[in-house]
Each structure stands twice: as structure tokens, then as C-alpha cells.
């Protein structure tokens, strides 16, 4: 059933100049599933996530998220994106940052929601401090709050655990567990195989822009995280 598909990628190609960063990639992720997008550096994971997030368009092919076009305003209202950059303004306070994004996501009471998320991420005591004065860990927690602020139905996470401190990892893990419980679809690229495979229900492996494997996470993958690369990855 089409309505049960959270993410549908159909024959997507993307070129950087003449170089094909993605070659005829197709897969589907059911609503409520968690897909671990795996692959070596330069395989095309970030390019694929950027296309899913609507940050760039595919050269060929089609992407639908939650049954709608990836660039539709109503689709974007329902997705949360956490990329390589934190997407937070240094010259604004933590509260101002979250209130701004709350407004852009059309929330009823962005100020109230911003305060709630500052409390959840342990930043309520520094809510009026400028982000430029924050430590790296505090900035990362604020970025996590920004991505989850509007209770998205689909989360697109590009190496979310990379460079996080312990506290930020704990916050993110708790939020991801809650998101899964409420039926949120998650697509997550990562190099941290063990953590990703524990969380994921499905796995996709990209190798030089091609989809080398897609399917449910199996017991072999959990027991031996290198199994997938040995069987489907680059030699």
C-alpha cells in the first residue's frame, strides 16, 4: 500500500559535473521503520540524504516522502533534518534559535515549545546565552533540539553520532527511541555500524553511488557488523 511507504526513492541519479555520485538508486522504507544507510566515505550517503531532505534535486529519478514530493512545503513541515552542520545561528541565543525554527515550522506557540525543548536538552539555564559562547556539546544538543522541535514524522540524520559528547549522545539516543515508539520513520547514515544496526530495522549499503544491498537487518549483521561489507561491499 502506497500510504504505508515512508520514503520511496525511484531510479535516482545525481551528477557532480560528469561524475555520477548516485547511479540508479531505488529503495523503499516503510512508515515507522528505521533505515541505516551504510557505505564508505564518498559512497554517496550524504548526497542521497541531501536529496531526501530537499536540499538538492536529483538529476533523474523521483523521491517521495510520506507519499508527497520531497520539496512540497507540507512534506518539509513533517521532516526533521540533522546534517553535518548544526544549523544554528551563533549570534542568536539558544531560545531565539529554537523560537525562529518553531515559527518557520508554523507551530502554535513557538516560544513555549522552545522552552520545553531547552529543558529537555538541559539547556534551559543558558537559554538566553548567545550560541557563539556555547561549548561544542551544548551546540550539538541545541542542534538535536532543532531537528526534533516539531515532532517530525520522518527523521533524516547524517552521521548523527559523529563528534557528539556523551551527554549529547544520551539525549539523541533517548529521542530516537521515543521517535521509534511513536512510529516516526528514520533514515540515518552512519559509520558506527554496531550502534546503527542495533537501532535499525532495515539496512541499505551504498557502494560508489550504487545501491549494493537493501533489506531487513538480519541476525548475522548484528552478530558481525562487518558481514555486510564483506558480502556486498567493495573488495
Amino acid at each position, binding site marked *: 500500500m502506497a500510504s504505508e511507504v515512508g520514503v520511496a526513492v525511484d531510479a535516482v541519479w545525481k551528477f557532480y559535473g560528469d561524475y555520477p555520485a548516485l547511479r540508479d538508486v531505488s529503495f523503499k522504507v516503510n512508515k515507522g521503520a528505521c533505515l541505516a544507510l551504510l557505505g564508505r566515505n564518498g559512497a554517496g550517503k550524504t548526497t542521497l540524504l*541531501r536529496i531526501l*531532505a*530537499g*536540499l*538538492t*534535486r536529483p538529476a533523474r529519478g523521483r523521491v517521495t516522502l510520506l507519499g508527497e514530493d520531497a*520539496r512540497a*512545503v*507540507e512534506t*518539509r*513541515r513533517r*521532516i526533521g*533534518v540533522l*546534517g*553535518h*552542520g*548544526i*544549523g*544554528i*545561528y*551563533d*549570534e*542568536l541565543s539558544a531560545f*531565539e534559535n529554537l523560537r*525562529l*525554527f518553531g*515559527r*518557520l*515550522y*508554523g507551530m502554535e506557540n513557538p516560544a513555549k515549545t522552545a522552552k520545553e525543548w531547552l529543558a529537555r536538552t538541559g539547556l534551559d539555564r543558558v537559554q538566553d546565552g*548567545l550560541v557563539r559562547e556555547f561549548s561544542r556539546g551544548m551546540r550539538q544538543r541545541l542542534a538535536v533540539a*532543532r531537528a526534533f522541535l516539531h515532532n517530525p514524522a520522518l527523521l533524516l540524520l547524517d552521521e548523527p553520532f559523529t563528534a557528539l559528547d556523551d551527554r549529547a549522545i544520551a539525549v539523541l539516543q533517548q529521542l530516537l527511541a521515543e521517535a521509534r515508539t511513536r512510529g516516526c520513520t528514520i533514515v540515518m547514515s552512519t559509520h558506527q555500524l554496531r550502534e546503527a544496526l542495533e537501532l535499525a530495522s532495515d539496512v541499505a549499503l551504498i557502494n560508489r553511488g550504487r545501491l549494493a544491498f537493501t533489506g531487513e537487518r538480519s541476525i548475522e549483521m548484528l552478530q558481525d557488523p562487518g558481514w555486510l561489507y564483506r558480502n556486498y561491499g567493495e573488495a
Partner: protein
Amino acid sequence: MNFLRNAMAIAYKDLRSEVRSKDTINASLSFSLVILLLFSFAFDTDSEQVQEISGGLLWIVFAFASSLILGRSFARELTNDCMDALIASPINPAELFFGKAVANFALLLAVELFCLPVFGIFYNVRWAQQFPVLLVVVMLGTWGMTVIGTLFSAMTVNLRLREIMLPTLVYPFIIPVLLGAVQLSKGLIIGEPVGSDNQIWFRVLVAFDLIFTLLAMAFADIVLVG
């Protein structure tokens, strides 16, 4: 309503950031004052000829000032990949563009309004006598420069030589705005009302502003997302 609410949220964010950092406004203001000062040394400011070209001098200063403000407009979104967060949000690219243009307009207008009295002192002109009409001309001309500049600022934001490319691309496009604004300003700046033969330039400025605002908003999605 959503359009204005989102655009104003972006404009407020940009202005708030600028008020705190002051990096663009300080650079633009000091640059403008230096040019005004240098021109006043270069010309005999009491001569009638200089008073006649003073409208042109003023708009050269404004155009230079604009390139500094516009150059930072989208560049400030590169820090922390904020541009990605904005494009991934449900804000319409036209709203994002309009909000940025409003913030740039406010910053540039502030610099221009600060420069006007300084210009009056250096060039011995009676700019305050026709101030309401002059303000309308300045606002129309500034919006024209801003709307083109904001669009090109978005287009050049990822270029390595964006500081050079932006004025190179923007100045040819704003020639009609500068022509109209200079024609209207040259009388107003010395305290004379706009003559009937120059009324057409008002229409040129309004038409340019409207057409390029609509065009820029129509192309915002292609420029920002590709």
C-alpha cells in the same frame, strides 16, 4: 499572512544578528564615509558643477555600500550550515528571499540616512529642503539595488571569489535604477523640486522595483535549491 510572517521572521533574525555582530554595518558605514571624504577632497565642493553631479556621487557611494551589505547576506548562512536548515524547513524560498531583501534594505537605508547629513556638510548642499521626496527616491532606488543584489548574493554564495563576483554581476543590472535615482536626486539634493520632465523616472523606478521583486521571488527556488 504566512508569507509575511515567515519573511519577517527571517528579516528579524538577520537584523538581530547584525545588531549583535555589527560586522556588516560598521564596514559599510565606514567605507561610505571614507568615499564621501575622498570625493570631497577630489572636487571643489563649492563649484556649481560639483553640485550638479552630487546626485551621481551620492548614488556611487550608496552602490559601493550596498555591495558590502549584500555580500554578507547569504554568506552568513554558511556558518554552521544554517542555509541547509532553512531550506529543509517548510519556508517557501520566496519568503526566505523576501525576508533577506527586507533586512538588507533596512541595513542599507540606515547607512544611507547616516550618510545624507555628512554628504550635506561635505558638499554644501541643501538636501533637507526636499527631504520627504528625496527619502521616497532613496527608498525606491535602495529597494531596486537590494532586490537584485539579494538574488545575486544567493547565486554567488558558494563561489570562491564571491566578493568580486557579486558587484561584477550586480552593477550592470542596477544601471536603470541608478539612472533613475540619479536623475531624480540631482535636483532634490540641492533643494529643488523634481521637474515635470523627470517625473518619468519615478515610474521607471517603481516599475523596475516591482518587476524585479516578482522575478526574483519566482526564481528563488531555482537559485536556492538548484
